[in-house]
């Protein structure tokens, strides 16, 4: 085990501290903390100004602990140690933010249910308005479709058939009357209607 008392600041120092961690130098993790924690904090604060201090500290320390406890997870040949830690801290912060977002959304939806069940009319009124708006919109769409049917259908029978289809009518007898095929056997009526 080699003990190094220097304060690292460049690529060579990063390599050195990594090797000290692998060699079980008990001072390496403390030196690394001195070297990287504030740098990582500043990096994340600048890049994620919407995050609070606790979230940033959380992400920074998580990345630091993970690396110190498993230094072999870092491949020296791929990139600098600080870049590796920045990436890890950033990923941890993104995970934290995503978890918090999911939690907030869940709380909002639970609050809505509670308010609707307990607190009175506010949400019921909102829902009523929303439904009324939807019904009005649906009527507009139907009217537009009927207008299209008028334009496309050649005669009144065609128009009526298309209107029935538009209204989702399924009864063969209604279509049979319209097509004047009620004298045919039911099976035949069905075949023609289809």
């Amino acid at each position: 085990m080699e003990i190094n008392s220097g304060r690292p600041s460049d690529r060579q120092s990063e390599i050195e501290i990594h090797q000290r961690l692998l060699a079980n130098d008990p001072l390496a993790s403390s030196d690394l903390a001195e070297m990287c924690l504030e740098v990582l904090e500043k990096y994340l604060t600048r890049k994620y100004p919407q995050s609070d201090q606790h979230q940033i500290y959380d992400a920074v320390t998580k990345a630091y602990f993970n690396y110190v406890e498993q230094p072999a997870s870092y491949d020296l040949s791929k990139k600098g140690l600080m870049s590796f830690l920045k990436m890890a801290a950033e990923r941890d912060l993104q995970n934290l933010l995503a978890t918090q977002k999911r939690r907030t959304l869940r709380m909002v939806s639970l609050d809505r249910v509670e308010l609707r069940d307990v607190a009175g009319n506010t949400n019921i009124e909102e829902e009523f308005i929303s439904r009324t708006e939807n019904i009005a919109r649906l009527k507009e769409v139907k009217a537009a479709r009927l207008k299209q049917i008028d334009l496309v259908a050649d005669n009144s029978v065609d128009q009526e058939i298309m209107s029935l289809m538009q209204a989702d009518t399924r009864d063969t007898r209604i279509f049979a009357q319209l097509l004047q095929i009620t004298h045919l056997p039911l099976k035949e009526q069905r075949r023609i209607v289809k």
Partner: protein
Amino acid sequence: MSDNKSQKDSVMSFAARRAAKHSHFLEAALESYRQHEGLEQAELATYLGLPPKQLERLALCARPDLAEPTLFRTQLAAICTRFSIPLAPLANLLRRVAAYEAESTPTNLMAARDHEEEPSRDE
């Protein structure tokens, strides 16, 4: 580090406190000892012969491994040299904490329970 968080905490203090939950770090042992002995941070620093400001950096050192005596001695010496503190208090602290941990391991608890549940020969 204690959980009494200051208004403007540094990321270093935060990490040092969090390290108490990671057995790899010396902080896990320092905090365990502090709690068992009912000490304040300043008292712990005094016991170790360390300026209180240095506790955070000490806390983030790796915990010397008692299971490997040669390595333990080398690691302990390295820490004490760097922080200019005497060997004995830190060595004593680490041994005491290892004893607390041995007392509370599940194997020991189960052995103690089995012993209590053993029917007496008089029955």
